[in-house]
């Protein structure tokens, strides 16, 4: 049964790969993306699409993410909590967390701030910062890190980021404001939102047993 499932899934994937490789999907004419990027104050075409021409998609995506987070928070809260055993800090993991965390945070800030110039942007930046927090959580224990992080402040930060994104997005659409500064601001706000969201979701899944 296991072997059959593996073979089936592999055959499906290889099929999709072959269809793609032999160009059965038509490729449309791509626009002159360099010109497009310049028009929005970016160097990276993807950033211009995500935060420029398709800004509304991105805003709605951010709201979907926020909704998922709120859903996790309110459906898991009434469930029984998992009593975390008092785990002594794991030596190796703690050392590595201390070593890696500054690098991870700086890298994620760099990605958010330079997302309009090269590969990067708010989503990967947030995911990277979120994994950094998770690394720390593995070293210290989730509940302990949660107490140290001031959950209430985080919540405010996250709602502020979403509100800021919506206001900025609508305003830039209405008044036709464009420029690199705006893109950096978008990326930073998205980064904050994704970081907090990642942490909240992981925290809630980690601290509840999933039993009613």
């Amino acid at each position: 049964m296991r072997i059959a499932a593996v073979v089936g899934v592999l055959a499906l994937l290889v099929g999709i790969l072959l269809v793609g490789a032999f160009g059965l999907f038509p490729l449309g004419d791509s626009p002159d993306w360099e010109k497009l990027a310049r028009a929005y104050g970016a160097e990276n075409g993807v950033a211009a699409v995500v935060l420029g021409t398709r800004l509304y998609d991105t805003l709605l995506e951010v709201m979907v993410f926020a909704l998922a987070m709120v859903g996790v928070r309110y459906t898991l809260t009434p469930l029984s909590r998992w009593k975390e055993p008092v785990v002594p800090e794991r030596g190796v993991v703690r050392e590595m967390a201390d070593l890696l965390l500054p690098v991870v945070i700086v890298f994620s800030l760099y990605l958010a701030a330079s997302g309009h110039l090269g590969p990067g942007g708010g989503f990967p930046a947030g995911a990277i910062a979120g994994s950094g927090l998770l690394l720390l959580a593995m070293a210290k224990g989730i509940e302990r890190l949660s107490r140290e992080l001031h959950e209430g402040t985080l919540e405010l930060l996250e709602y502020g980021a979403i509100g800021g994104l919506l206001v900025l997005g609508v305003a830039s659409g209405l008044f036709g404001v464009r420029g690199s500064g705006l893109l950096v601001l978008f990326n930073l706000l998205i980064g904050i939102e994704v970081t907090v969201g990642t942490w909240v979701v992981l925290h809630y899944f980690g601290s509840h047993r999933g039993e009613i």
Partner: protein
Amino acid sequence: MTAVLLSVLALTLAAVALTRRRLLWGIAVLGVHSLVLAGLYFSLAAPDVALTEAAIGFGLVTFVYLLSIRRTGRIVVAAVECPGLLYPEGEGAVGLLWELLRELSTRTHRELELRWVERDEVQALLSTSEADLAAGDLIPSAAEAHFPEVEFLPTRIVRARLGPGPLGALRGSREAELLPKGGRLFPHRGALLSALERGELGGVVVNLLELRTMYLGGKLREAEVEPLEDTSFSVLFAPDEEELARTLEEVVAELRERGEWDDLVRRYL
């Protein structure tokens, strides 16, 4: 060309991850798979997607999986029923070994999952890592010598003869290997005992603990007992569970040091 090579590598890694029995290995391979996918996207001139794949597929998802197996990790015990050491009672079990296993479970923050098995299933369960350890009426046979083991209680294998007739032993056990020619093998101790009761057997090859149980049960009152081999009861571990074996060794050593071991032995044996 790079793209095709990376795709093939990614598919292979996915297959490898799917076929791992140990969750930890599956997660590790899945992480590498994500990295290869990120390389593939990069070679297809999509660095943004590659970055996101590396951050989420390799970083976040791997961490989430690691956290969840640390949370839900279980120690699957292949338990061979043995009065005194480990025998079922309700949902759990009772016995000297049960105390040891419970201590092991608290120490590693992993819950115990007992699976009652026959003696001859132990080897297959351990070598496929379907069980993390095997315990109970267990003296490692020659075929099982390569598994990590923790010896905790010395015993002796003896031949007990009641009269004429073939000798009997449990299939797959060390006792069965010491059985003289013409002996009969039984799948579990219930079958062995009932064959003995019906008078089909002229005697048994068993360990001292089993001999005592049979003696107390009134089945071997006038047996002629002859020692065959000095050995000890062990807990056997799956090949990649050496760390767990070391932890159990520590548990036993600490119990001995604190003097609680003798109390336990007196209480259960």
